């Protein structure tokens, strides 16, 4: 409040957003020395040198101006080829692909492009922290459906159907999932596709972790028959290619939807960073082998870490993708915030309390295993000590 004018400068919508629960933990963890952090939602690899080198070369050659609003055509062509090769989906590079500033911006654009005031968007929790506020900022109403740990956090189409109303516009799904690591099975995706068709809904599919799928191939919901026309497929380079700081992602959608997103993008962003686009071009052309090596490395660490969590008494399903383990801490009698805070203060291991990702995350903690094997071993040792003391 400004005392003179009594005017509220910050919009009511923004003022109504609750502060990110991760922020408080970040401040606490940063104030301590010797912390092993399993709280990081990004790869522990530095971007591969060939990608960095390609981007440096583009700078040396003076590619420092804007690109086309939708991104370099060459890059969109590579993205189209990549989506066809890996996920068997077809998009036209000229009109159906948009290069964005991270998957984050693509999610924001998708919501702003489709939501009318009061439209409802279904979000399945526990979920990535950005969906709900972005729905609100787009003028929509988030409707929360809870996945249950008892079912390994699988999507429950029946629960989703119960949440559908006249105003439901879209469902946001994320597979492999942050924070649970759960991968939706082709059968579940088909069930969701039937719902979407029956109720004429769009699906916003956040597939940013698609490259980090450990059992079999990633299935994109856009590849389910009939779904291409009602899916906004979102992915990017941050996780699979270890390029978080580059801020580069993309969306693929039928022309009408994609052009609507592009309209916002050209006013609000102009284009994604040029040097990052040149790096991404190299990533798609020659990066496959390194992605595979990183995937193997995560898979082994997942196996070690999840087996060890179960061994020390933190029950955890084996996550099929991403780099998160989401064990239950319910039997300790602590809330997930109490557990995380005490673990941090007493043993200097930082994890993220599950309630940050929605009320159905209560009773769980998110541990990222994108840390060196030595650090994971030490973290397990400390967590074991902590549990024995409880």
């Amino acid at each position, binding site marked *: 409040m400004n005392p003179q004018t009594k005017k509220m400068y910050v919009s009511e919508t923004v003022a109504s957003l609750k502060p*990110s629960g*991760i922020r408080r*933990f*970040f401040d606490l*963890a*940063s104030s301590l020395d010797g*912390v092993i*952090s399993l*709280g*990081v*939602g*990004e790869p*522990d690899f*530095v971007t591969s040198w060939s990608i960095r080198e390609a981007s440096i070369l583009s700078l040396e050659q003076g590619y420092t101006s804007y690109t086309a609003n939708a991104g370099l055509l060459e890059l969109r062509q590579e993205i189209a080829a990549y989506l066809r090769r890996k996920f068997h989906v077809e998009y036209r590079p000229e009109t159906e692909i948009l290069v964005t500033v991270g998957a984050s911006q693509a999610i924001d654009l998708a919501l702003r492009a489709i939501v009318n005031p009061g439209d409802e968007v279904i979000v399945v929790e526990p979920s*990535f*922290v*950005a969906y709900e506020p972005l729905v609100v900022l787009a003028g929509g109403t988030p409707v929360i459906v809870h996945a249950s740990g008892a079912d390994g956090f699988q999507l429950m189409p029946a629960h989703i159907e119960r949440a559908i109303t006249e105003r439901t516009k879209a469902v946001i799904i994320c597979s492999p999932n*942050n924070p649970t690591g759960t991968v939706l099975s082709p059968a579940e995706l088909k069930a969701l596709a039937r719902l979407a068709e029956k109720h004429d809904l769009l699906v916003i599919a956040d597939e940013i972790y698609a490259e980090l799928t450990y059992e079999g191939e990633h299935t994109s919901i856009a590849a389910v028959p009939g779904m291409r026309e009602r899916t906004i497929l979102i992915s990017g380079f941050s996780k699979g290619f270890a390029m978080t700081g580059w801020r580069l992602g993309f969306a693929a959608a039928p022309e009408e939807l994609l052009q609507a997103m592009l309209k916002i993008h050209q006013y609000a962003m102009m284009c994604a960073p040029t040097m990052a686009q040149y790096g991404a071009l190299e990533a798609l052309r020659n990066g496959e082998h390194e992605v595979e090596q990183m995937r*193997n490395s995560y898979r*082994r*660490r997942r*196996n*070690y870490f999840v*087996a*060890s969590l179960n061994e020390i008494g933190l029950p955890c399903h084996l996550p099929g993708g991403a780099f998160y383990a989401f064990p239950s801490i319910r039997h300790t009698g602590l809330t997930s915030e109490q557990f995380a805070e005490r673990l941090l203060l007493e043993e200097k291991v*930082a994890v*993220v309390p599950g309630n940050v990702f929605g009320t159905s995350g209560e009773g769980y903690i998110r541990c990222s295993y994108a840390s060196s*094997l030595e650090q994971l*071993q030490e973290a397990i040792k400390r967590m074991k000590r902590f549990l024995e003391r409880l």
Partner: protein
Amino acid sequence: MKLSDKELEIIEILEKDARTPIDVLAKMIDLPVEETEALVHKLEEANVIVQYTTLVDWRKVDGHEGVTAMIDVKVTPKRGVGFDEVAERIYRFPEVKSVYLMSGAYDLSVVIEGRSMAEVAQFVSEKLSTLDSVISTTTHFILKKYKHDGTIFDKGDQDRRIVVAP
């Protein structure tokens, strides 16, 4: 020898870090400890895993003297045994660290370690050049090792990530 996927994984993991504890290794490849131990043993017996060694940065050791040279050796192969016989004569010397048969301008690449340049020079002139089949040698001394067998000596890539992130 055809290896299973699990055996290949064991090799990949141990090649990066031979000191990975067996229980950790077992969990990483999702097998019981005894079975993992048996597989490692089998790979050792078959000489697929030949040796576990330590990569040392000798520059960090005060008072250490030592030079490494890579020598390009041209030889005349012998009927029936090709290059193998002369290669064996060379690799049996303890100061020879490695010997490779090469395609291209010369035949054998020989890596030698000695306490001083003089010592290496003496070895080349007295032992290597005097072998019957050796036609010529070209000696290159290594001035600095930046990276060896996939490992960068000066680790610049420390963890720069923020502590907690969504």
